[in-house]
């Protein structure tokens, strides 16, 4: 027996078993009224996975489905990129400069507890297009997490690194570029991963509330796709939309994880 079995294969096998068991139980629950005459609460109202799969296969040929996917992804990327672009420098500034911290932090702490979705009506009012409003709400979702992670990461840098760098003759810019920045990268990666998760949560809800984009039903994104399916009574499509979002969020997080591992090669990983 090989004691050093590839954990990846074993993990993959177990993941498959778990997914199949989940689908089976779901199928049983959803069809129990028809098959056994007993309705299982909650699950009994959900379309069975076989029907969802059939609907999905149909949708794969529908350009509207793919457009919804692309629309949401673009909004997520826009909001997320903006949040990184503003959040990282601001976080570094707050961590490095006490005066800036005293000036900006109260405002930040006041705005932070506001749920991103509470921004939706205001965002629709003060941004000229629907598209910008949704991207802005997505930005808000990721922004605070990123800023706080950067502030935390840059603020927790071991003082000995600064002492060593300065003693060896490094000056301000070099200390920033070669000590502060790399020391903060792990915190940035964590902030980005958490922020990315929030942007997917936020974008879908924002799309539902705002009723999609200006380009009509197909440009509405995944959130609008789900909402539209609900209005139109296509319940299988609701589930397809939900799972699609799950896959999209997972893919984005995985991409970030890989990118994060590449930019922090010095970290020991299990």
């Amino acid at each position: 027996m090989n004691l050093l079995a590839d954990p990846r294969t074993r993990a993959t096998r177990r993941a498959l078993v778990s997914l199949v068991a989940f689908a089976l139980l779901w199928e049983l629950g959803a069809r129990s009224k028809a098959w056994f005459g007993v309705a299982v609460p909650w699950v009994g109202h959900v379309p069975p996975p076989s029907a969802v799969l059939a609907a999905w296969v149909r949708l794969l040929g529908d350009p509207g489905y793919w457009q919804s996917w692309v629309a949401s992804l673009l909004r997520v990327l826009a909001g997320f990129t903006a949040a990184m672009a503003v959040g990282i420098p601001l976080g570094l500034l707050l961590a490095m400069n006490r005066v800036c911290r005293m000036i900006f932090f109260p405002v930040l702490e006041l705005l932070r507890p506001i749920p991103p979705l509470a921004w939706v009506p205001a965002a629709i009012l003060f941004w000229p297009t629907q598209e910008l409003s949704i991207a802005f709400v997505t930005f808000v979702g990721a922004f605070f997490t990123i800023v706080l992670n950067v502030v935390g990461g840059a603020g927790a840098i071991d003082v000995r690194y600064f002492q060593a760098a300065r003693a060896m003759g490094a000056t301000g810019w070099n200390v920033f570029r070669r000590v502060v920045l790399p020391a903060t990268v792990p915190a940035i990666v964590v902030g980005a991963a958490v922020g990315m998760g929030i942007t997917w949560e936020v974008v879908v809800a924002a799309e539902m509330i705002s009723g999609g984009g200006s380009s009509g039903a197909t440009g509405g994104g995944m959130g609008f796709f789900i909402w539209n399916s609900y209005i139109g009574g296509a319940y299988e499509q609701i589930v397809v939309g939900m799972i699609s979002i799950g896959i999209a969020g997972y893919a984005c997080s995985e991409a970030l994880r890989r990118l994060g591992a590449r930019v922090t090669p010095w970290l020991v990983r299990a």
Partner: protein
Amino acid sequence: MNGAMQLLGVAKSYGEGAARRPVLEGLDLDIPAGRLTVIIGPSGCGKSTLVRLLAGFERPTRGSVTLDGRPVGGADRRRLVVFQESALFPWMNVADNVAYGPRARGVRPQGWRPQAAALLERVGLRAFAGRYPSQLSGGMQRRAELARALVNEPEVMILDEPFRGLDAMTRELMHAYYADLFEETRRTQCFVTTDIDEAVFLADRLVVMSHAPMRVREVIEVDLPRPRRAADVLASDRANDIKMRALTLLHEEAMRAFAGGSRAAGDFLAAYARRRAPAVPTPETRA
């Protein structure tokens, strides 16, 4: 020879007003050029504060810290610290860590490449130049840190319990490495430790510190021949005498620290009894 440090009447306290906490008071200390001075004292006596003052990370509240007669300003590369636990930059590989100082000062590559390579070779890390610190053993990390400091050619090396946390075997190897490096370069060394065996093996001068306030209790000249070998030092009567002398002093200081603690407790109890005396006579006040 350059690299003599002197502390005169140095006091250092932290905090203001009621929260003021004096750590050093009236400390006079000489660290002669080109010699290996080991500072040993009971834990918590202020050795790390001393290190920060010598390095220039902090200024004394009173008194003067000088290097070759000139007052020490901020941190600079003439006095470099090797820290208690590794302070290598985790995000740079060994080669980049070692090259950090010269590069940061804008020295041209031909000005530091040969020395950096020679130092890496010298501390046995040439094959590990591309590794990150997290991929090195504890002993390798300390060697990399010694190299990172030495490439800057400091006049004074300040080592704050640099080999703490290493296993006994690695520690002994590090002592040999470090002693060799010192014997080659004869740079001024100020080595802070709490380990008496380490102290006797390494020191030219052993400075035993007193507890609260930290002052020089006694300076012992460790006149053992160099190069030293661990076995010779273990077998040497002179080394044993020095060790016993230092241990006696350290024991006294530890007892004083302990007694100091219980005296404070005793004063507190006495004051407490006096406060209650007028109302209810306690057994103590009656007796």
